[in-house]
């Protein structure tokens, strides 16, 4: 087994350290929100997880496009690894949102455009994984994955647009939000620090996981080759 590259080792430590700092910022440094109380702290990681989900799926769509253009296998591996990470983080995003919504909206779930879109996005990429699972030929699996990754990524914002025409109750904290949305608030400077630091940290978490996942992929291929070798002897 090849040793872990130095850069990856460093990345592990950096990500770990960043995460500890992020936890401190979110749980202690950021002030308690006046109206919502401590449950508002869910917000920092909630948005960060959502951001990683969207980023991961964007990477999948781009990697898929590059794969179709160049036909190099490593792009397909990136696309697949990214989807797996994206599905996990989108799930964390949805669940943490639910945890927040229970005390604030007084319900675990509501059919708000953002909630629906996040769920549809999750379903699209679960379907993506199921599609890959069903196809044996690796070449075809890669091509289909790339195509579905692109079509799926296009359809998600369109879904959001179509449902957006109804009124939404989901707060928009960044940018010009509707202040009447249930649970809206303005961030204080310290909250802002915690928020952007969470985004930053989660991006590192994503990069680290992606790298590990690609490495794992290479190992499993090696194991596969070794098996073949032993069987053929």
């Amino acid at each position, binding site marked *: 087994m090849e040793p872990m590259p130095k850069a990856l080792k460093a990345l592990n430590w950096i990500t770990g350290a960043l995460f500890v700092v992020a936890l401190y910022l979110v749980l202690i440094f950021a002030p308690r929100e006046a109206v919502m109380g401590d449950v508002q702290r869910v917000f920092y990681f909630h948005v960060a997880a959502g951001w990683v989900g969207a980023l991961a799926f964007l990477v999948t769509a781009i990697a898929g496009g590059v794969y*179709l253009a160049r036909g190099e296998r490593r792009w397909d591996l990136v696309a697949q690894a990214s989807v797996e990470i994206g599905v996990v983080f989108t799930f964390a995003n949805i669940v943490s949102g639910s945890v927040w919504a229970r005390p604030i909206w007084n319900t675990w779930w509501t059919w708000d455009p953002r909630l629906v879109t996040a769920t549809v996005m999750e379903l699209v990429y679960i*379907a993506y994984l199921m*599609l890959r699972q069903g196809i044996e030929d690796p070449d075809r699996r890669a091509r*289909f994955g790339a*195509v579905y990754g692109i*079509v799926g990524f296009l*359809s998600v914002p369109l*879904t959001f647009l179509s449902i957006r*025409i109804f009124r939404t109750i989901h707060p928009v904290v960044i940018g010009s939000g509707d202040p009447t949305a249930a649970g809206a608030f303005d961030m204080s400077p310290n909250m802002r620090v915690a928020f952007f630091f969470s985004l930053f940290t989660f991006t590192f978490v994503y990069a680290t996981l992606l790298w590990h996942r690609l490495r794992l992929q290479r190992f499993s291929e090696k194991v596969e080759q070794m098996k073949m070798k032993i069987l053929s002897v």
Partner: protein
Amino acid sequence: MPEAGSTRVVGDQPVVHRRTGGLGAYLRSIGAIIWKDLVAELRSRELLSAMLVFALLVVLIFNFALELDIRTRETVTSGVLWVTFAFAGTLGLNRSMAVEKDRGCLDGLLLVPVDRTAIYFGKVIGNLVFMLIVEAIVLPLYSVLYNINLFQPGLLAVILLGSIGYVAVGTLLSSMAVHARTRDVLLPILLFPVVLPVLVPAIKASNGFLQGFEMAEILPWLNLLIVYDVIFMAVAFMVFDYVVEE
């Protein structure tokens, strides 16, 4: 398809021929594929009959599930119709591709020296025709069964536009799903989350027409539907080559 087959050129020309056929030849090959699908269906009738019976059963189940009395009927009809069309549609899409694959027709089609996108459009239009036939039978039946007038030009236009978008995505995805081990289960799972942007405005616009909303209220949905049709058609057109490539 003897017509498309006979245009095949021997020697070193087929590739040149494939790209320089001109619009006429392109349309002719699309026509040939549609014709092939229609003739095959006319002889076997297995696809349309399955879609139709299934669609009627869905309507029947809804009747009991929702207690379609006069008051609820007005508000849920568009939803019932679209669920019926979407379900029956996946059945048809699955079947139309599975037939190509199982009997080796797909390989034959791919060998024909025409642009691959002609195959896509041929299949799209063929599937669209099947879907429209099913809709053309379900709509009057629904009208009679539930005593509600569905023959409004606006509603028919929405159903046409929605079906186009549905089939445009569906044909692309069914040509992928057909290669999977789990193909019959896979298509709806692949298709429904992706085609949602088409279904939502279609349901909303249909509902608008059925409830007699003003045109200004329906128009945004109609516009959205047209835009999505164009987007999905364009994307499928661009990536279809990669799906059928061997």
